[in-house]
């Protein structure tokens, strides 16, 4: 692998409203540090893609945003969300995760019915009204473009769904919470091309209502879907810019090599 100067970076600052601003974030698993001093802001109601080779730290960084690294890794630095530093011991992580939802790489529906997959968390958060629950099930499944396929079998096991359907169910489950920010950790990497394009369509429709942060190693996906792109390499943020700029006029050698496939 080529050696790049990891301390050089090109991070453009946009004068827009940001949903989340990370300042000097370091993450380590025990002795092993996997994120080095990353400062990065995510514009509100936009799609930001984080790209990079596997092991570049992009997923680790994503998981720090809704505190999924608690008990797993040590996260230092400030992550500002609505003027609160959410990387603080005093933060109520359960409340935080209601507003910053997450969809994972592998579809992980609960071993429950399709309906319960969506209503389970809602009920636990105090929504008892049957009508309201039904409404949320329908709206979220429609937003996730799954409604037509499952509306007649809402009470069947979610484990009977195909991989692509299950992943869209997980998206529906996340947006039924009416979150502010949606984190997606390579949501289509375990799926076939047809399911992938359905997921992308779904996400394209969602970006009007949510701030979306998506980790992907698929560059076409990043260029098709996102407004902004951040390129990570070996735990360092190398470049952040508008997606169109990143893919046409990258400023850093590492970025250029990565997107042109001359990497490693």
């Amino acid at each position, binding site marked *: 692998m080529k050696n790049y100067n990891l301390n050089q970076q090109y991070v453009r600052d946009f004068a827009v409203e940001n949903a989340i601003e990370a300042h000097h974030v370091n993450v380590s698993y025990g002795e092993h540090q996997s994120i080095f001093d990353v400062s990065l802001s995510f514009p509100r109601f936009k799609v930001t893609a984080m790209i990079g080779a596997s092991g570049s730290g992009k997923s680790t960084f994503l998981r720090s945003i809704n505190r999924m690294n608690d008990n797993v890794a040590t996260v230092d630095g400030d992550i500002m969300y*609505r003027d609160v530093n959410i990387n603080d011991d005093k*933060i*109520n992580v*359960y*409340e*935080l995760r209601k*507003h910053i939802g997450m969809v994972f790489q592998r579809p992980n529906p609960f071993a429950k019915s399709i309906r319960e997959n969506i209503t389970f968390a809602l009920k636990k958060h*105090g929504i008892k009204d049957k009508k309201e629950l039904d409404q949320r099930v329908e709206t979220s499944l429609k937003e996730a473009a799954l409604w037509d396929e499952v509306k007649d079998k809402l009470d069947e096991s979610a484990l009977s769904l195909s991989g692509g359907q299950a992943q869209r169910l997980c998206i529906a489950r996340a947006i039924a919470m009416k979150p502010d920010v949606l984190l997606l950790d390579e949501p289509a990497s375990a799926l076939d091309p047809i399911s992938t394009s359905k997921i992308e369509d779904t996400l394209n429709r969602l970006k009007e209502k949510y701030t979306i942060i998506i980790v992907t190693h698929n560059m076409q996906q990043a260029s098709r879907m996102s407004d902004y792109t951040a390129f990570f390499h070996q735990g360092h943020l190398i470049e952040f810019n508008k997606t169109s700029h990143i893919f046409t006029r990258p400023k850093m050698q590492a970025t250029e090599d990565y997107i042109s496939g001359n990497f490693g």
Partner: protein
Amino acid sequence: MEINKKILMPSKETRQERFGRTLSFISISAIVVLVALILYFIISKGISTFTDNHVNLWDFISRQDWSPSTIGKDGKPEVGALPMIVTSFSVTFLSALLATPFAIAAGIYMTVIGPKKSRGFLQTVIELLVGIPSVVYGFIGLTIIVPIVRTLFGGTGFGILSATLVLFVMVLPTITSLTVDSLNAVPKHLSEASLALGATRWQTIYKVILRSATPGILTAIIFGMARAFGEALAVQMVIGNAILMPKNLITPSSTLTSQLTTGIGNTVMGTLGNNALWSLALVLLLMSLFFNILVKLIGKRGKF
């Protein structure tokens, strides 16, 4: 309420979490406390023979006369536990010695040489052997093994040999299932390499598979011995229950467990006779701890 206020305040989930953690921690603590209580009570009762009744510890483990209510020639009560200790160890070692070849053979059959279907069948057989209660083993020992031993070797039929035969069947499933685990843990590429070099199947089993599974098999044997050492009723039913130094394998004798089973009901709490029995229980407890430590040591060293 504003989101930025909400995420700074405890919520229902915070309370649930505290509740759940506390509840599960109480459960696990209860178990730890129970074990501590067992250790405390058995140890404090077990040493009272030596602290309250001033029996000499060395006499206890080296003398052969057990009759706590009578005073011996030297003016001290007769609390020599040696016959029971010897008998307990004899039945334990002999039954483990007898069961090990069977367990290893069954283990090899279930992991290497047996056809798929009959492996599962043997697995079921082993599980069923575990499931048979010890009194049933004792009853069968009493009605089949004791008469056979009596016919073949004379005497009453009660004794170490009968107990060994009963325990053999009882520890067999324990040793077998753990042996199977350790044989399964041997990396496949080792045996494949050996076969590729032209070794016969038996050479591969003997020189490669068994050798690298040795620590696991030793652990299996120790678990089997622990079970044999602590087994009470099945042994008590066929051992004869005479507190005599075993002269051979076919005279009636008594193990620590069998003496405990028969004795506790016939002695008065607080007397030397009763305390002495608790000392036997203490020996059992210490041996059980010793077996545990042995297993840990083997686990740590991994290979011999």
